[in-house]
């Protein structure tokens, strides 16, 4: 595997990750992904389902 392929692979992986994360909820439901609506009270913040907080 040459360098360019590796780099492009990494970039594609990152893009896929972001797309999946920010996909509108409706589409997600159709594909069957879980709705990561874990952000709620302080205790939920930071848990696995919610990283919208810091």
């Amino acid at each position, binding site marked *: 595997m040459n360098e360019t392929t590796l*780099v492009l692979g990494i970039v594609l992986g990152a893009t896929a990750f*972001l797309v999946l994360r920010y996909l509108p909820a409706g589409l997600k439901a159709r594909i069957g992904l879980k709705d990561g609506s874990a952000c709620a009270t302080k205790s939920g913040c930071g848990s696995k389902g919610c990283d*919208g907080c*810091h």
Partner: protein
Amino acid sequence: MNGPAAPEIALVGCPNSGKTSLFNALTGSRQKVANYAGVTVERKEGAFVTPAGRPIKILDLPGTYSLRGRSPDEIVTRDVVLGRLEGEEIPDAVVCVADATNLRLVLRLVLELKAVGRPMVLALNMMDIVARQGGRIDIERLSKELGVPVVETVAVKKGGTAALLAAIDELPLLEDPPTEHGWREPSAAEIRAAHAEAARILHDCAFHPGNEQFTRKLDRVLLHPVFGVVILLAVLFLMFQAVFTWATPAMDLIKAGIEAAGVAVGEVLPDGLLRSLIVDGVFAGVGAVLVFLPQIVILFFFIILLEDFGYMARAAFLMDRLMAGTGLHGRAFIPLLSSFACAIPGIMAARVIENRRDRIATILVAPLMTCSARLPVYTLIVAAFVPDRTVFGGFGLQGLVMFGLFAAGILSALAVAFVVKKIVWREAPEPFIMELPDYKMPAPANVGLGLWIRAGAFLRRAGTVILALMILIWFLSTFPAPPDGATGPAIDWSIAGRIGHFLAPLFEPIGFNWQIVVALIPGMAAREVAVGVLATVYALSATGDEVGQALQPILTAEWSLPTALSFLVWYVFAPQCLSTLAVVRRETESRLWPAIMFAYMFALAYAASFATYRIAGALLT
């Protein structure tokens, strides 16, 4: 039907009872957070195993003072306990958590829960505080009077839940819990009677000198019309000062570490794409964000401390008139303050507000008051442009400016709320009744756990979303490569560079250069990423001797002061990150409100930046 599946327990209690600490103590990390079907209320489920080897599911229900259900989350608590929430199993048992230092209100809740008819245990939490304050509770008598088993718990200490676990083992958990329940919505007369009964039981079974004297004395100062406000401002200022100065040694350490790592990797890898990706994209970009971990930790340290101590309610009290004058709801203020670091919990906590318009008004302005993602941006610019001096006899100028920026956010939130409530919707404010809990010494374990969770969340975010974003940014800033023989920085030919240059005229009136414009876009996904993007963009723009320089001195050299100030002001009002907009959409159940939020914040940011840039430019020339 619960049958062979693990029995399910509903965890109920008043707010401020330590219910969540108890839930955490029982379930550890075996927690699942989601939403109830059709309602925007958080559903927290956990699992644990009793000493007898029984697996149990437990549901942490929203805190409430009674089963009557005034706001969406109290309604959920009521419906789950009664077994009439769609899609939810009927609980096999109820564990009611009470703050043992403050039993009067919760005893009435216990009587209500008893009427429902499910097997029940009352857990008196924070018993260590009762003992420390010289109080006594006759557990056996209390149990007899109430007709339910009563146990002591100390959620924050190891082994503090042993009695509760044993009691759960002894509960008569039926195979099929009955669907009927004995609860009816109580009339005022019935509440009075229940109250009297609870008071009588309490008088007979408990003796508690309470923290009353200490709380009273302290409140005389902290709630004083003049001193109270002064102290509040002082506390806030101290917080920002600390965030800025205490964090510096740790931040320098992290910075040096990342730089060293970057250099080491750079030497190992051959010159080329991979090296650029790792050094200019990952190390420069993610590193620029990671550096702020100490600041986040210190900020949260203060927030958690103040909250556990009980001071947040006092802050809400002092600010209420201002808030009421602008139509904001007192009950929302504490979540807003507590979630000072992130708008999302504040927006979700707005659920306790029953009036829809009040709720929307609070949601619309929450992001202006809170967002710790601004911190890296503020810090970067302030460090680069504000001299490290002390003024007015001892106040660090940099900390003062930071404080001023957050104050600007809060004031603008109040102003916008005022406009919304008084001009757009004219309505009298809802009644404001809020408990001011007695002061309590914060438990180090609780504070430590809170910090651990936050730090973990920050690192996780940096390692996932921000990392992915920076990789993407790097890609967009590197391709396509410049044609042979081109002069100037390579980045100008890349996609990001082109977009930046293309949009730059739009932002030129407010003093933004094209690099800033490029940083704004991914800042939508995660605002602190703007810092990372700037780092990467400038790293990729560097030619010759400039390669490898840290970001801060570059900015000091290249940006004018009006531009820096304009950028700062932009961030005070900057339109929200996508996560927040998504949450707003879910909480308001419409696309309209997030759109309005985005639009008004963009307009505000642009106008404020414009004014700042022009005025600063005029003043400085």
